[in-house]
């Protein structure tokens, strides 16, 4: 197949990060990429916006933004792209791979931190390394946006309560006039450690050992 020749360089990039992926899966993703981009080499925000199924998703803006966020490319850059190519697309998708039986404990730790970092970047919209109360409020508001309007009041209260919880778990002794700046990545890790992110945050078809599903339309 002439196809595999064209993809071999992509496979090289992919394999350097996680050796256990099949060519078939990459080909599927590439097909989808081409579909989304209208056969171009890059996709822009508008391409992703136009996916009909995403319309009902309350956090679609954040999801789309995550694809264009430079911080998710594992290269210590900050800012965002205007358009992304297939490699960047793959890089973002790689955050959703599941652990296998052979994954060791340290590798699981690394995976968990990576996925938590992805989530953190989604919340931390101004890239300053902390999630402030306003940013967290925004997150909760977006979550509740599509569920009808019980009101911004409830969203604010919930976000405040959540922030309070983070603060009291991580910094239990605070003077009354001290101010908790925002949730740092360490605190974020701490409060979400019960969720076992490495097994929860995955997309099924990225698991090598399962039978690969095809990316539909």
């Amino acid at each position, binding site marked *: 197949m002439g196809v595999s020749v064209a993809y071999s360089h992509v496979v090289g990039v992919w394999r350097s990060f996680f050796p256990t992926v099949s060519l078939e899966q990459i080909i599927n*993703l590439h097909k*989808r990429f081409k579909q989304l981009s209208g056969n171009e080499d890059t996709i822009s925000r508008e391409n*992703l916006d136009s*996916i009909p*199924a*995403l319309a009902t*998703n309350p*956090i679609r803006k954040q*999801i789309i933004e995550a*694809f264009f966020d430079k911080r998710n490319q594992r290269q210590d850059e900050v800012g965002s792209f205007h358009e992304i190519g297939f490699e960047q697309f793959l890089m973002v*998708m790689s955050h*959703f791979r*599941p652990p*296998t*039986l052979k994954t060791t404990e340290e590798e699981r730790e690394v995976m968990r931190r990576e996925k938590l970092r992805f*989530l953190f970047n989604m919340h931390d919209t101004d890239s300053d390394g902390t999630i402030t*109360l306003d940013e967290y409020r925004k*997150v*909760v508001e977006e*979550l*509740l946006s599509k*569920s009808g309007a*019980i*009101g911004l*009041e*409830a969203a604010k*209260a*919930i976000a*405040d*309560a*959540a*922030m*309070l*919880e*983070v*603060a*009291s*778990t991580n*910094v*239990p*002794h*605070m003077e*009354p006039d*001290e*101010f*908790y700046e925002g949730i740092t990545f360490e605190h974020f890790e701490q*409060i*979400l450690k*019960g*969720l076992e992110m490495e*097994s929860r*945050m*995955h*997309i099924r*078809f990225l698991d090598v*050992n*399962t039978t690969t*599903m095809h*990316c*539909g339309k």
Partner: protein
Amino acid sequence: KLHPTSLNFLGLFSLPERALLLVLVLVFLQGSVLPLGAASSPDVSHQDKTDNHKVEAQGHNYTKKAFPVLSIDYHYIQTPFEISLWVLLASLMKLGFHLIPRLSSIVPESCLLIVVGLLVGGLIKLAGEQVPPVMNTRLFFLCLLPPIILDAGYFLPIRPFMENLGTILMFAVVGTLWNAFFIGGLLYAVCQIQPDNPSSLHQIELLPCLLFGSIISAVDPVAVLAVFEEIHINELLHILVFGESLLNDAVTVVLYHLFEEYSGIGTVSVLDGFLGVISFLVVALGGVLVGAIYGILAAFTSRFTSHTRVIEPLFVFVYSYMAYLSAEMFHLSGIMALIACGAVMRPYVEANISHKSHTTIKYFLKMWSSVSETLIFIFLGVATVDGPHNWNWTFVTVTVILCLVARVIGVVGLTYVINKFRIVKLTTKDQFIVAYGGLRGAIAFSLGFLLDPAHFAMREMFLTAIITVIFFTVFVQGMTIKPLVELLAVKKKQEAKRSINEEIHTQFLDHLLTGIEDICGHYGHHHWKDKLNRFNKKYVKKCLIAGERSKEPQLIAFYHKMEMKQAIELVESGGGVKLPAAMPSTVSMQNIQPKKPPPALPPERALPQLSKGREEEIRKILRSNLQRTRQRLRSYNRHTLVADPYEDGLNDFLIKKQKIIELEKKITEMNNYLTVPSAPPDSPTITRARLASDPQAYSVKPTSDSVPTIQVDLASPQSPDSVNLMDEFRNARQPEQDEDRGLMMKPPSEAKGPKRPEDAEGAKDQQRLMRCLSDPGPSADEDEDEPFLP
């Protein structure tokens, strides 16, 4: 009443020994009363009575007997009395076991109960009387089993269950089939190759063996629950073994009926096998359908119960029981119907019913299932003593060995296949626990009991073997599983309270993964789950949930539930003692609010004081709330319930909250603190309210005073009045508890802010409090941070 210290000689014994003595006395009592009742046969007495009545009706020609001042008529009350006695025995046993400290940690309760049953049965037999047929199959299946299953089904953690449904089904269906055929087939082979020529075992044909195999192969939910409840393993393993024990009921039912039908005839054709498969689908899906229908009916009914809150729990119980009975009527799987009913109705019913009804349902289900479970194990012991036994060494030992072997092979084989499709793979440790946790119990015994002795000559041998297997699994496996879990360092259940951050991120993850799947164009199970949720929200919730609650998003519902829980805990704890400093958190709302520029205050603010205006405001609010509290305390009536916050509507609630937030802002600006000491972890009310086995229960961590507590410090320590107040509160709590008939519910909005200490105590002394508040702020800075009460 037998108060231990009132009888002098009992003072010689320590508490555990007293408890043991009590236990023995009760066992003896039970053993002696029952034969007494059974001694005179009920028929004779009935005949006597009718004769008497006839005689009296004929006329007053007979000589008048002296009017009986005191007479005993045991037969009138015999059946209910005996039932109550059994239930009482069961409950007292349960009490007794927990009084003896070390025993309950070594031996699981189920073992102890079986031993008690053996003792009681033994006593009855010693007394020479006939043991009452307690393990009556109808009694078991219609009265004892449903409460346990309903309790399990209603509180089934849906999320992990659904996530692992494939695995559970594999174990339940394929695993049970494998067990049945393996055990049945090999038993037949062993029976045939018996060396003694006219061995009784030669008569056993293949089909009865397979029937026996199918009876003994099913993992029993009662036994699993009883044992696993005490070992607290992680959620995944618990749900795997427990789910399997529930879902294999369908397989057991079909296999049992299939083999029983055709055992007489002796052959099963391929057509019958095929029909068996169809029957299995009908039984399983039919059971679930029946349960779901009744569940929806219950949910719909609960929509209209806002004016008759008292009977709300009844609907839940009756509809579920009817689902079970309806399924049993068609020979469908009653257990699956019950589970489906409970699981389907729960989200809607909980949104509709009052908080009190929810508590009632929870407590009643736990109570009934607990008593049922205890009774089942005791009866198992009694029936063992009673039952006609036919001990055959070969048969029994081979059965036990085969059960173990079949289970291990089955689990290992199935896991190998399942792991290909699972994301979170099952490790060897997991497999071991799943295999080891395959306990057999009373269901197997009852099914064996159900066999017709006319068709099955070897029924007694079967029963003996079944009992041996049950004893083996419950005693040996039940007792050793706890140390094995410790030894293998299997992950235990996380006791942590579900935090709001986790809830937010669970929801966030759901949406994120659905979005990613949509971007990839991959219709994975997130996609379908999302679709189902949207369908649920759009149509189903509108039908089944009353009023405003139908539109409430899950996150907000969770948040309100949490707030309510915290408020109730605070009220119940009374805010008496400041907790020992495990991790007292002094973080409060003002720490996270972005700092506003300080209001332009005069520079000499060394001693901030409450201005008269503000003091008046606070006083007014406090007074009005205290009055309301007092009114609630007085007007209690058996048929009316305290006002439920949700009945007032969410809007009211939110308005109240807004007021509190504004008030709190004003107070923080004053810089004059009032502290509410947080809930002590061991307050008896809290322990009472907390149910260990309730998955929904929020266990109170010592740091329970985080979220969304608004810390308001009580005024200066040096004021003698304020000290008295705290003592007053503590003293005031004692008589309060007598008035407290049930959960005193106050809307959480009123439990916030400075009103908390007062609401919590129902303080009668407003005056002292006023003086407290108008005290100048603490003059010496170091006093501020000291714990208020040591």
